[in-house]
């Protein structure tokens, strides 16, 4: 909620004598303090990250612009010194001092990135092209212990990004290319889709298994949230006609793809419902609202894809406009209902805890 909305609510409560003038003043002051604290935090975060990134880029660019003048030994030393110094500083801040300061967090993320930078510099020194799968696998291997030691949300995201890059590069560069030509396109698509779902499933199971690991709750929460996003993204791709056509190996005039396409669309809608219900149950409201927005995006895309050739352009936009205004109102109403329901769920769980 924005500061102005909260202030309006406080004014309204004061006018309706729900709260006294003194209470309203205290609330307004607290809101002001909170807003200025948060905006200060955001600004500091940005400054720290920009500073740490600029510092690392500066070192890399220094190496690049003095390529001919620096000895090989000097280049290797700089390639190693950059991540070691950044990660040591981050370790000292986050693990030894147990500091929550942003400087340590910014250095830790740039340090993880610098591990990959080191391998890239060594490749440049010897003019060799790095095999991307090996490059990312090495990067992931050395970044993983640090991500688990630092264990914040940003480290979880960085870890998952690296693991995903390694896995999918291997999948497309090694596995798919090794079977390319030997199997049908439809089988290839099916294998890729199933692998995507399995990948998300493993990510979710990992996040669920270590859900209550002390000090790692936020780290593994990211696993569960990202797995939901991955599943939704794959299911969304599956709703397109082209997907069903390739899967069914349907020619230009073929109709075999229609039934699977309908099933995939229904499956996607069902999946979204499931994610919304699960998100509410686990009080992941941000995920619930993101899925609702995805629902709206899905209808927007489907409307234009389905009716674009069937309707006259003007009618397409007029009907589309009416539908989306109506949809917007429906969403707004349901958002209020959903929020009310979430409050109810929270209160009932609290009262049951009190009874216990």
């Amino acid at each position: 909620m924005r500061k102005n909305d909260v202030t309006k609510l406080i004014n309204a409560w004061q006018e309706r004598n729900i709260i006294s003038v003194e209470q309203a003043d205290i609330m307004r002051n607290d809101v002001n303090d909170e807003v200025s604290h948060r905006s200060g935090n955001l600004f500091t975060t940005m400054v720290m990250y920009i500073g740490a990134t600029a510092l690392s880029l500066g070192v890399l660019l220094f190496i690049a612009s003095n390529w001919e003048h620096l000895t090989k030994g000097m280049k290797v030393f700089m390639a190693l010194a950059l991540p070691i110094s950044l990660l040591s500083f981050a370790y000292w801040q986050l693990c030894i001092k147990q500091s929550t300061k942003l400087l340590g967090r910014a250095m830790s993320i740039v340090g993880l990135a610098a591990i990959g930078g080191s391998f890239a510099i060594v490749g440049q020194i010897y003019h060799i092209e790095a095999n991307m799968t090996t490059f990312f696998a090495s990067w992931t291997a050395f970044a993983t212990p640090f991500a688990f030691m630092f264990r914040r949300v940003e480290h979880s995201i960085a870890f998952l990004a690296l693991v995903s890059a390694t896995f999918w590069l291997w999948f497309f560069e090694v596995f798919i290319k090794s079977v390319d030509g030997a199997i049908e396109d439809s089988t290839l698509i099916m294998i890729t889709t199933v692998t995507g779902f399995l990948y998300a499933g493993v990510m979710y199971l990992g996040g669920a298994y270590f859900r209550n690991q002390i000090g790692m709750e936020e780290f593994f929460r990211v696993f569960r949230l990202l797995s939901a996003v991955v599943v939704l993204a794959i299911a969304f791709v599956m709703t397109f006609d082209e997907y069903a056509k390739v899967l069914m190996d349907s020619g230009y005039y073929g109709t075999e793809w229609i039934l699977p396409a309908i099933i995939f669309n229904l499956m996607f809608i069902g999946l979204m419902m499931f994610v919304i219900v699960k998100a509410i149950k686990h009080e992941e409201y941000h995920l619930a609202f993101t899925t609702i927005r995805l629902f709206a995006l899905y209808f927007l895309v489907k409307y234009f894809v389905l009716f674009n050739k069937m309707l006259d352009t003007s009618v397409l936009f007029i009907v589309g406009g009416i539908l989306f205004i109506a949809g917007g109102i429906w969403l707004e109403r349901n958002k209020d209902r959903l929020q009310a329901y979430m409050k109810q769920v929270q209160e009932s769980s609290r009262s049951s805890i009190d009874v216990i």
Partner: protein
Amino acid sequence: MKNIIFVVTIFTFVTYTLFIVYQQEKILDEGQVVILKTAPVDPRDMFRGEYVILRYEIEQEAYDNLSVYQKPLDRGKVYVSLNKDYRGVAYVERTMTYDYDLRPNSLYIKGEIKNDRVRFADLEQYYVTEGLGSKIEEIPAGKLFVEIRIKDGNARVVRLLDDNLEPIELSL
């Protein structure tokens, strides 16, 4: 415990990186010197540095040397046996899809068939100081050579040479 993990990870990272460096240095130290005729194409300017992409005459020669049955093997590994002319510039003697026919200490490079040519991935790029990439590209075709080192089929670029086979000194 965390301190131990931190120290072990840093130590392994340094050891691994230095091992890669050692492997490359071994090829450069012990490898046979070979000169290849090259043509630079399409200099790229990455934020991390600048490099030129190098193409070699032997890429096409090696591909032409394959039989009609071997040519469709896209991404297939090949072993290109080399010989040197009177100037020391290498040319293709034979291209093979197996390595058991190679004589001991024979001069050969590992490559792969890709898009109707034999590709030598580790010889394709040459990193330079920022701003020098376009100067290298200005050198006329047929006037640029590359000194490489080959050990057990693995090749590494050492430096660029002019048409007198003298090292090229480029400055901004």
